[in-house]
């Protein structure tokens, strides 16, 4: 395994060379990847995020620069207590300097709190709650890849503009689903669309047919799926079975990852509209990156959450290099100061409220005939320019914004 060798090489090299980074506590920069390694979100983040973090360390060239960087991993099992106790232990005992990824809003919010208390760094990639750059924003946290607002905005806007002006929401009955639904509804209404109805299903639900039938009777053109993971997959799968798409209604996935489409298969998923901040087949850089990634990760292409970890870790290390210190709030301030640039998101920047800004893209899932092979799933339907892709800073109510 390539990264492993280079990682050890880095460690040995760092020990041998002179420590120019005297300001770095205990001489090692420790990055903790905390996510769901085994449960619902394991495929879209999980071990893939760890691969991405290690690639970032390698690409940054820590070894050559004489910096010693270590990546540690933990499974928070989607339980906030577990996540919170790991975070505390990492910061207090294991001298971890930054935590990255953190799917599941409840865990992300808990770790956000602790990171601020201990003055470390948190880079959230797979966590979705927009509160991280709103009422819970912190000088120690950057929200990297996407959030519920940007998904709602991307899909909602584009769909209404393409004529999908009447919606029915299928919402997972929990805070995440509610906020996706509300934010999308606001976008739909703003663009002159209307909402024909909504149904809140318990989380998780394996059978969606009853809710789909309600969506069908509503005669809405678009069925917005304000849920995630297995719920979304089941809804789309059963929608195909009940002839929802054939009878002229269309699904809009508000949080769909590449791995979900992979799990559904194109036969069922075709025609689905969704917003993501990354797709492996966007340009030469993303293709090259993704192929490297796939080699290290059982041939699977990266999801946006995983590349977010890569991009975040890379920028974090750049900031430390520029600052020559690893003190939490200062590093984050530096990260906000430096423009971001990497193979996956291209150029971008970090806002005062901790929101990383880059383009978002609207994709449509290909028909089986259009796909040239494994993982060739999306066609680009539109680009949401960075400036419009995220919630305006003023609307979030973040106390860091003056």
């Amino acid at each position, binding site marked *: 395994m390539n990264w492993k060798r280079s990682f050890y090489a880095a460690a040995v090299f760092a020990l041998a060379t002179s420590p120019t980074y005297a300001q770095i506590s205990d001489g090692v920069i420790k990055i903790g990847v905390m996510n769901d390694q085994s449960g619902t979100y394991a495929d879209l983040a999980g071990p893939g995020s760890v691969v991405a973090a290690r690639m970032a360390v390698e690409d940054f060239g820590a070894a050559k620069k004489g910096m010693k960087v270590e990546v540690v991993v933990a*499974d928070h099992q*989607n*339980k906030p207590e577990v996540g919170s106790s*790991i975070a505390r*232990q990492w910061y207090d005992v294991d001298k971890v300097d930054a935590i990255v990824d953190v799917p599941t809003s409840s865990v992300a919010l808990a770790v956000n709190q602790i990171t601020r208390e201990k003055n470390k760094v948190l880079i959230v990639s797979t966590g979705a709650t927009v509160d991280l750059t709103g009422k819970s924003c912190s000088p120690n946290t950057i929200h990297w890849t996407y959030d519920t607002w940007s998904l709602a905005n991307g899909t909602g806007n584009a769909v209404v503009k393409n004529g999908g002006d009447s919606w029915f929401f299928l919402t997972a009955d929990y*805070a995440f689903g509610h906020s996706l639904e509300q934010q999308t509804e606001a976008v739909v209404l703003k663009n002159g669309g209307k909402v024909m109805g909504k149904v809140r299903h318990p989380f998780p639900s394996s059978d969606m047919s009853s809710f789909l039938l309600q969506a069908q009777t509503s005669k809405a053109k678009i069925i917005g799926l304000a849920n995630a993971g297995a719920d979304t997959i089941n809804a789309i799968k059963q929608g195909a079975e009940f002839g929802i798409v054939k009878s002229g209604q269309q699904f809009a996935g508000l949080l769909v990852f590449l791995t979900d489409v992979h799990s559904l298969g194109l036969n069922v998923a075709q025609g689905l509209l969704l917003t993501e901040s990354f797709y492996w087949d966007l340009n030469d850089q993303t293709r090259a990156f993704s192929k490297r990634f796939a080699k290290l990760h059982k041939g699977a292409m990266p999801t946006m959450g995983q590349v977010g970890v890569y991009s975040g870790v890379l920028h974090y290390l750049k900031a430390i290099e520029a600052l020559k210190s690893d003190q939490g709030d200062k590093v984050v301030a530096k990260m906000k100061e430096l423009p971001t640039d990497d193979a996956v998101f291209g150029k971008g920047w970090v806002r005062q409220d901790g929101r990383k800004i880059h383009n978002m893209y609207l994709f449509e899932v290909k028909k089986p005939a259009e796909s040239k092979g494994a993982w060739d799933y999306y066609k680009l339907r539109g680009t949401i320019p960075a400036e419009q892709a995220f919630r305006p800073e003023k609307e979030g109510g973040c106390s860091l914004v003056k």
Partner: protein
Amino acid sequence: MTQATQQAAAGIAEREREQKQHRIAFVLMAAFFAFGPALIYPVFLMKVMCFALFACAFNLLLGFVGLLSFGHAMFLGMGGYVAAHTAKVWGLTPELAILCGAAVSGVLGLVSGLIAIRRQGIYFAMITLALAQMVYFFCVQAPFTGGEDGIQAVPRGKLFGLIDLSNQLAMYVMVAVIFFSGFLLIYRIIHSPFGQVLKAIRENETRAISLGYDINRYKLLAYVISATLSGVAGATNALVFQLAALNSVHWTMSGEVVLMTLLGGLGTVFGPVVGALVLLAMENYLAQLGAWVTIAQGVIFVICVLTFRRGIVGELMAFFKHWSR
């Protein structure tokens, strides 16, 4: 000496030996929690104490009354939510927040106990599961719980308005005091006349009835005590982690406490503490292994049931008993 007095003497000797064993075990446990923070991360130990109290409270019911509740998460979770809410929104001091949590769990225990206590065995387990699912539903729906985001950033506050609990040591001492008081209370209950009646009910319900005991009242009281102490554990846990979230009300948490009790030793005084320690240590220190944690838990479950059904402490006790003869 007559045979009867001989037997009585043997019984007394037996009890004395047991008490001696308990005293030694208690001293060991106290020493572990007193000096543990020097070696083990204190927040982890606080979590262990909270869950140990939860498991002990559960064990009071399963080990000493023979009632398997499969819904105990509702008391842990409710205690946590109420304490978190009162501390964060109402600004109560921590001791009052914990009391509120305990009180609500106790009332919940009374209500659910009145419904559940009339059934036995698997039906009791199922009815408690049903009630816990309803409580779970309530927690998902109720606005104050924050849905799956949970209640975050709960202040630890100042104990009695004086001692600042954001100080790690102060918090640790408070959790330890709560745990040891709860533990001793349970110990006292088990060895009181009330506890003897409970054990009689476990052994033979019909005989207990024929001896004139109103067994439902005894069971209900034990159930309410167990619920209240679980609430205390949940409330304390919420303050330690400064959050309350859905997973502590979920039915898998009810399963976890069964596992802790079984692993440590069903119906032993110290078993649940050991069980909680082992299980949480696995969850915490094997966290990078992902799915293997679940697999390891499952394997332990199976091994426990197949080979040492008395649990760690139960087997140890049997070993010493055998050895000392």
